[in-house]
């Protein structure tokens, strides 16, 4: 991988009170401008690793470096998309999308304008004044994504963002995500337990072994995506090889 690393984990470990070891000596480099996936069976600590990178959980051992700076907490160059969306139920879509900017003290007019643009990009323009409970799961996650895009971070951290939406929405969302990111210079770190999702989306897949989570293998699917439709990608030999390779490794962890 020629691209320089934007996120680096060095010997990261995490133990919880009571001695549960969630992560053990994880070292990896995630390239700038690429989509990297953290993939593994449930309980492998992939979400913990993502939250450590986000600065939401402190590591017990080791350190994480983002853009040459050691992570001590959340930072403006990282934005998070939550598995359960984490939208304010009492705020409409516009305020939810603008919320990151609101916290930063961006004046209302300016942040609303940015938020409107992001809402349009995720295809929710007519829902600006709707409330989260009026939206489907897929639409709520678009709001979560728009909120992360609105703060214009270089790195988008996504924690199983599609796990609570149905399969059709999930596929459509994956395609849109690729489309959206193709035009942006974003680095995406994506946590999933779906092999197909990882192979379909990623430039680089980090396979984690179960508890305590450790890097088991790093795979570069090397799928040519530009100018091809999703069905072509899903029939691509490299895509199918990647899915198979991941499954060969993961199945030894299935009890």
């Amino acid at each position, binding site marked *: 991988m020629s691209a320089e690393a934007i996120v680096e984990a060095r010997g990261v470990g995490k133990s919880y009170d009571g001695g549960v070891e969630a992560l053990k000596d994880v070292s990896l480099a995630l390239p700038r401008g690429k989509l990297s996936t953290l993939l593994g069976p449930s309980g492998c600590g992939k979400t913990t690793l993502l939250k450590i990178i986000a600065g939401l959980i402190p590591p017990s051992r080791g350190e994480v470096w983002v853009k040459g700076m050691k992570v001590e907490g959340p930072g403006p160059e990282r934005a998070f998309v*939550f598995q359960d969306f984490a939208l304010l139920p009492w705020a409409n879509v516009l305020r939810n999308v603008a919320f990151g900017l609101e*916290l930063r003290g961006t004046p209302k007019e300016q942040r609303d304008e940015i938020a409107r643009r992001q809402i349009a990009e995720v295809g929710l323009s007519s829902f600006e004044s709707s409330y989260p409970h009026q939206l489907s799961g897929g639409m709520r996650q678009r709001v979560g994504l728009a909120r992360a895009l609105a703060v214009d971070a270089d790195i988008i951290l996504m924690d199983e963002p599609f796990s609570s939406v149905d399969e059709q929405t999930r596929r459509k969302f994956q395609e849109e995500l690729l489309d959206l990111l193709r035009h942006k210079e974003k680095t995406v770190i994506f946590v999933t337990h779906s092999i197909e999702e990882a192979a379909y989306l990623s430039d680089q897949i980090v396979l984690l072994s179960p508890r305590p989570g450790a890097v088991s293998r790093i795979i570069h699917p090397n799928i040519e995506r530009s100018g091809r439709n999703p069905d072509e990608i899903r029939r691509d030999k490299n895509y199918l090889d990647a899915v198979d390779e991941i499954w060969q490794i993961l199945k030894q962890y299935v009890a």
Partner: protein
Amino acid sequence: MERKNLIGTRRLWQLISIIFFFGLWELAGRWPISLAFPPFSTTVLALLRMTADGSLLKAYLSTLQPLVIGIVLCGIAGIGFGIGMGLSRSIEWFSLPIFIILQAAPMAAIIPLITYIYGIGLASKVLAVVVLAAPVIVMNSYKGIRNTNPSLIQMCRAFLGTRRQEVIKIILPHAGALIFAGLRLGLAMGFIGIVIAELMITPTGIGDLITYHSSVADYPEMFGAIASIIVLAALTIHALERLERKLFPPEVRGS
């Protein structure tokens, strides 16, 4: 149409329930089960007489004074204290046991003690209201704060919110519904407190009407006074409940 029918049927049954209850009362009074138990119609007439001669209004003016003062005090100090308990571990550990005991204890039992210390004036009656209303108001505020969705707090931190923003923009709006419900329950307890105070400490206001008319064997007037405070409390609590649903609709309150 279906829904309209349902509401119609509901109203009909509610009407039947009311007629049944008052009809039973009327019958029991005419039987009579006791000379001291007047029928519904006589009670209503007595109530109208007391309204006309102004004694009911005068009684309520003096009854509502300590009730309102007590609830306002609880509203300010109790909510403030409950929020403090929710936000600070030290305050929580310091005061939680006290409030758990206060909430479970039959607080009416300490009203004689209040009289012993504070005499028979306004202060004692206010205190009686406070002692009954405060625990539920404090506990509800505390629980409202403590039950904030942890995912929203994490979201706020991930988007660089300060602790202050976290409290103002996430925790307090989230707790609003429970705090308001606490006030409503507190008022219900306050009604109990004030009636006990007026019966046990010194007969004033509505308590005076009840004791006086019972001592001179004007049982319809006595029952009229009792019924009036029950109706007033029930209507006030119900109105607050409706206001609560309007201010904090279940789908946007987030808890």
